[in-house]
């Protein structure tokens, strides 16, 4: 009797699997898919490099050859501000203000250009885009950029000895250029 019942149960299970198996599998798959986090795009190690190359081309086209060459060789761009101030623009570091005449370091202006529109791409602009954003904001509205930034005394994030060394390198680099080139670099 029990053997007959067991056989009947096995037969019912087999028939049930044949009848509902495909639906059950689909339901289980859908359920698992709902629980899975959204698929991330495959990591692309070249993406940042390609973005930086594009950013460099844009920077070159906007700031001109001489300023771009300064950035390429020295790692920063100098902008002459109003009132005898100069600014050194480094990628993803504070803007460093200095006295154009004496070379004295005045302030660090901490400023970022965060873009939260695509979480997968992060919120940091490519290096050269960050420099270009500072360059355009300083040229276009120096006062507004300075007001938006957090101001600190020199040395908070950028080593003052490095900035002094950079100012010496800048003078040497400018000294090697022609007068025409200097005029174009200066604002």
């Amino acid at each position, binding site marked *: 009797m029990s053997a007959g019942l067991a056989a009947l149960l096995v037969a019912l299970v087999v028939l049930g699997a044949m009848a509902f198996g495909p639906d059950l599998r689909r339901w289980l798959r859908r359920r698992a898919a709902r629980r899975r986090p959204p698929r991330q795009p495959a990591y692309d190690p070249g993406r940042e490099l390609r973005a930086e190359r*594009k950013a460099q081309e844009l920077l070159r086209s906007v700031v*001109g050859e001489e300023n771009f060459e300064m950035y390429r060789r020295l790692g920063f761009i100098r902008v002459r501000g109003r009132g005898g101030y100069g600014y050194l623009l480094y990628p993803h570091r504070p803007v460093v203000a200095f006295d154009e005449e004496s070379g004295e370091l005045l302030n660090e202006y901490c*400023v970022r250009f965060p*873009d939260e529109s695509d979480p997968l791409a992060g919120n940091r*602009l490519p290096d050269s885009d960050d420099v*270009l*954003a500072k360059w355009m904001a300083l040229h276009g509205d120096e006062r*507004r950029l300075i007001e938006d930034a957090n101001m600190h005394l020199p040395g908070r994030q950028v080593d003052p000895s490095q900035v002094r060394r950079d100012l010496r390198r800048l003078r040497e680099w400018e000294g090697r250029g022609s007068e025409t080139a200097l005029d174009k670099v200066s604002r």
Partner: protein
Amino acid sequence: MKPGHGDVLLAEGDVEVAEEEQRLIDEFRRQLDEGMWAAVPTNDLGGRHEAAMVRDFSEIPRDAERVIFFPRAAGG
């Protein structure tokens, strides 16, 4: 200018063609509504490079070649 991308072309057109100008205006407003800043790079006759910030489409010189949008500055 976008993280992970560099510059991305958003719209292009001729401001002398009404339909195209409207498309440029719409995109300009969309970018500013999203909180971006807009700058127009310029070159004077002496080869000096400058940039002007613009807050309204009417501020863009009619002969401007491009407008660059970039994220608004924030204290770091």
